[in-house]
C-alpha cells in the first residue's frame, strides 16, 4: 500500500467527530500562537501596561468566538446531521477522559499562578520574574493548554480505540 492509498484510507476512516475535534484543536492552537506571539513581540512597557493586556485578552476572546462560529458554520454546511448527532457511550467516556487531563493541567496552572503571585507579593529577590502580571499569563497558558489536551486526548483515544489506558 503506497502513501496515497494510506492517506485515502485514513481519510475514509476519519469520523465527523474527529474532524470537529481536529478543527477545535487547530483553532485553539492558533489562538495560543496569537497569544504567545503577542507576548514575545511586546515591549517591556506594553507588558507592564494593564490597558495593553486587557486589550490583548479581549482580542483573544473575540478571535476565539469568531473562529469557533466560522468553523461550526463550515462543519454544519459539510454535514448538519452528523454535527447534531448525540455522542454514544464510548464517545462520552472518551470525552470524560479528555476532561480528566484538562482538569489536571488547569489545577497545576492555577497552583503555579498562586505560587508565582505569592513569590511576587513576598518580594523574594532570587525568584523575581521580569515579566509583569506573570500569574495571569500562567492562567491563560494553562487554560489554552488544557483545551488543547482536551481535544488532543479525545483524538488520540478515539483513534487508537484504547480508552482504558
Amino acid at each position, binding site marked *: 500500500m503506497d502513501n496515497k492509498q494510506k492517506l485515502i484510507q485514513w481519510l475514509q476512516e476519519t469520523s465527523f*467527530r474527529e474532524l470537529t475535534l481536529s478543527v477545535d484543536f487547530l483553532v485553539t492552537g492558533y489562538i495560543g500562537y496569537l497569544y504567545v506571539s503577542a507576548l514575545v513581540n511586546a515591549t517591556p512597557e506594553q507588558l507592564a501596561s494593564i490597558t495593553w493586556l486587557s486589550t490583548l485578552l479581549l482580542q483573544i476572546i473575540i478571535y476565539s468566538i469568531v473562529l469557533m462560529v466560522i468553523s461550526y458554520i463550515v462543519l454544519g454546511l459539510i454535514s448538519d446531521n452528523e454535527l447534531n448527532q448525540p455522542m*454514544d*457511550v*464510548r*464517545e462520552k467516556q472518551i470525552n470524560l477522559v479528555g476532561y480528566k487531563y484538562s482538569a489536571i493541567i488547569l489545577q497545576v496552572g492555577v497552583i503555579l499562578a498562586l505560587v508565582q503571585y505569592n513569590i511576587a507579593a513576598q518580594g523574594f529577590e532570587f525568584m523575581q520574574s521580569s515579566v509583569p502580571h506573570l500569574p495571569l499569563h500562567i492562567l491563560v497558558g494553562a487554560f489554552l493548554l488544557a483545551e488543547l489536551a482536551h481535544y488532543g486526548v479525545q483524538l488520540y483515544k478515539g483513534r487508537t*480505540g484504547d*480508552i482504558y489506558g
Partner: protein
Amino acid sequence: MGDPADNKLGISNSIRTLRFLHNEMTQKQLADLIGVTRQTVMAIESNKYSPTLEVAFKIAEVFNLPIDQVFSYRSAK
C-alpha cells in the same frame, strides 16, 4: 467461530465473522442498526472497547443470536 481473539483473556467477540456471514454487512450498517458510531463498532470488534450491556444485547439482536454466541469471556483463572 475460530476467531484469534477468542483465545485472549477478557471479553472477546465474533462480530467480524458474523457480519461477514450476514451478507457482508459493513461496520457502518451495523453501527446504524445499534445506534453507535462506526468507530465504536471498530473498537468493539478489535476488543479495545467493551460495549455496554445494552449495546451488546442490540448486537446480538441484529444477528438473531443469544448474547453468549456473540461475546465470550475468558478469565485468568
